């Protein structure tokens, strides 16, 4: 129960500010007589997909030799097919706009189908070596499949999977918690991250401009900025000889991101630009203090620069709110 709300709804109704309906319906919710379990259902669906795909993965790992590759590939295909049949039956007609919500389970059944197809493709590749030495191409195939599914069935989840799988094809991991861009050679991975980032941001902006699935903008741009700024930061801190050039590029890109985000009122892009620019500037401070053996002076300069950025943040928020 929310006592403030219960009291407020009564007062607002008495004063004629809140009509009835919806006052009595809102009162039920404020009293806790009606609660939504949508978040819980969503969490259960995610958990179910996670458990099921992990279980199937373990099963394949342990028994793939005994059952035989053709049978396993067929079984995975059948299971994925069942998911897609369900998806097709429950999907809304295609539109370039936002499709009507088909229900909370829809995205997760689609996700399960896509993951099963992805497993199937990877399994077929491992067993039958379709692409030969270019075996990572199966990741590109999965990425394109997910992209098609995302557009057809209006699924941000499928789009996220598509973009992360595309990045994986280029040897880049979008999981920032791992602390590294990927397992490959740093220079190559860095350029791949920057390339993927530029492609994602450009495609996101182009789709918004064309009015085609414009509501996916945040997925395209956030993934793109994560890779682009992450790649540039990796150059700033990982390239011993050319770090200055990487820093200049980071400063330029961050400035554009911050400015465009500020103008458009997009707080998350603004934050990504500010954090990347600040982290990059720390490299400059490290270099400046390389021969100055004063830890306290360095700490004070770091604190001072953070205070400057904080002032910028407060000022930008004030102006964005005013405009």
């Amino acid at each position, binding site marked *: 129960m929310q006592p403030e709300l219960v009291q407020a709804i009564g007062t607002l109704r008495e004063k004629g500010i809140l009509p009835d309906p919806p006052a009595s319906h809102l009162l039920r919710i404020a009293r806790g007589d009606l609660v939504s379990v949508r978040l819980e259902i969503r969490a259960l669906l995610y958990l179910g997909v996670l458990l099921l795909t992990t279980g199937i993965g373990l099963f394949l790992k342990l028994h793939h030799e005994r059952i035989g590759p053709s049978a396993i590939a067929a079984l995975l295909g059948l299971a994925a097919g069942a998911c897609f049949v369900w998806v097709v039956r429950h999907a809304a007609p295609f539109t370039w706009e936002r499709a009507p919500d088909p229900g909370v389970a829809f995205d997760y059944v689609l996700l399960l189908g896509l993951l099963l197809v992805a497993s199937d493709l990877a399994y077929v590749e491992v067993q039958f070596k379709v692409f030969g030495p270019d075996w990572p191409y199966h990741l590109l195939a999965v990425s394109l499949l997910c992209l098609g599914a995302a557009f057809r069935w209006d699924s941000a989840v499928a789009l996220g999977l598509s973009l992360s799988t595309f990045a994986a094809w280029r040897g880049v991991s979008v999981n920032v918690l791992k602390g590294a861009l990927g397992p490959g050679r740093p220079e190559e991975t860095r350029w791949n991250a920057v390339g993927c980032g530029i492609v994602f941001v450009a495609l996101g902006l182009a789709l918004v401009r064309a009015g085609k699935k414009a509501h996916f903008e945040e997925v395209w741009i956030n993934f793109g900025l994560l890779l682009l700024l992450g790649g540039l930061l990796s150059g700033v801190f990982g390239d011993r000889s050319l770090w200055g050039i990487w820093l200049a590029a980071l400063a330029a890109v961050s400035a554009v991101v911050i400015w465009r985000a500020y103008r458009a009122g997009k707080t998350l892009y603004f934050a990504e630009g500010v954090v990347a620019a600040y982290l990059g500037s720390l490299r400059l401070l490290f270099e400046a203090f390389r021969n100055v053996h004063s830890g306290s002076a360095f700490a004070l300069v770091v*604190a001072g620069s953070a205070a400057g950025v904080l002032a910028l943040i407060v000022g930008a928020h004030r102006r964005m709110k005013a405009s």
Partner: protein
Amino acid sequence: MRSETAAFERASAVREAAHGWRTAGMIDGPTEEAIGTEYPDPRIRPSPVWRVLTFLFVTVIVLGVFIALSLSAVHGLTGQAFICLLAGVALVATTELQEQAPSLARRGGAGATAFWAGAFLTAAAGLYFGEILRLRGETGFEITLAVSALLWGAASWRWGSAIFALFSSLSLFLLLARQPYGRLLWILLGALLAVLSARRLDERSWSPLHRETAAALLVVGLAVVYAATNFWSVETWSIERFRVDFTWTEPPRAALAAAMITTALMPVAVLAWGIRARRLFLADTGALVLIFSLVTLRHYVHIAPLWAILSVLGAVVLGLAIGLERWLSRGAGKERGGFTAEPLFSDETKARLLQAIPVAATLQPEAPPPSEKGFTPGGGSFGGGGASDRF
């Protein structure tokens, strides 16, 4: 908490609800504005992104100044303790000043300074009792835990933070674990905390932030009782191991039998309580401890291989979620027993977009290693789309 802050928090709860009603299309813009006028809150409350950004940069400033002071002006542990105390007191004052200024109170800066105030004051206590006074045995550490429990508790009460209450209760129960009969103390005080907190969940005289804290403490109380009565915990003496003089003995059979019963029954009881009271945080807690109980069961009873358990459980959970949504949606008014699968006032568009984050973070495929000269295909990661494991 200042009475003015509590009043603003109450107004803020109404304003936020009105915003949700407007988003859901239940009221129009002028009605939301009229409600805003009726329940004024002069404090500036930026979106979570701004608040996190402010928190991060205030943290950098605080730590930068602290490190600079520590490196230049302090020698020895006494000096360090003094600097921690000084920084803690200064940050308490800074937090109070921010709390009184409507333009600063909810920007994220007050949260950062309050957090670091608690951390520095706890560190000062730890350095003073543990390193400077050099109290015998583990006494210094235990006094520090007691001080930590009091400090975070006071901070939680003053600034209305459920997270600080969690820190406080963590310190308290860690301290209790180191006492004789620690497990019994966990059960008794955990149950007491749960009972006292449950009574305050709808307390009108408390501000919304304090009621949130009560809810968090109820979860802590239940978690502590479960941790003390779980079969694995009893069998391995997991709580008693916090004591310095712990020696392993065979756990009593009666305790194991009781633990077996509570491990099985407590999740169901908490889940049922949550459903009956229509308090989702309680039902979620029950579901979470149910998972722990299932993991405990799997630890002792190998009824099937892991892949089978995961697959069956995954299918059951998926089926349960889909069935639950369908069952609720087919009820009169798309609800049954006071539960609905409809979003009510949450922003469903944003929720669908946000789903992409955990999926991409946890189910993305592994990036393949770079190709080497003479490389033969087939040794890479299996499971494009992150579906499964390696061969």
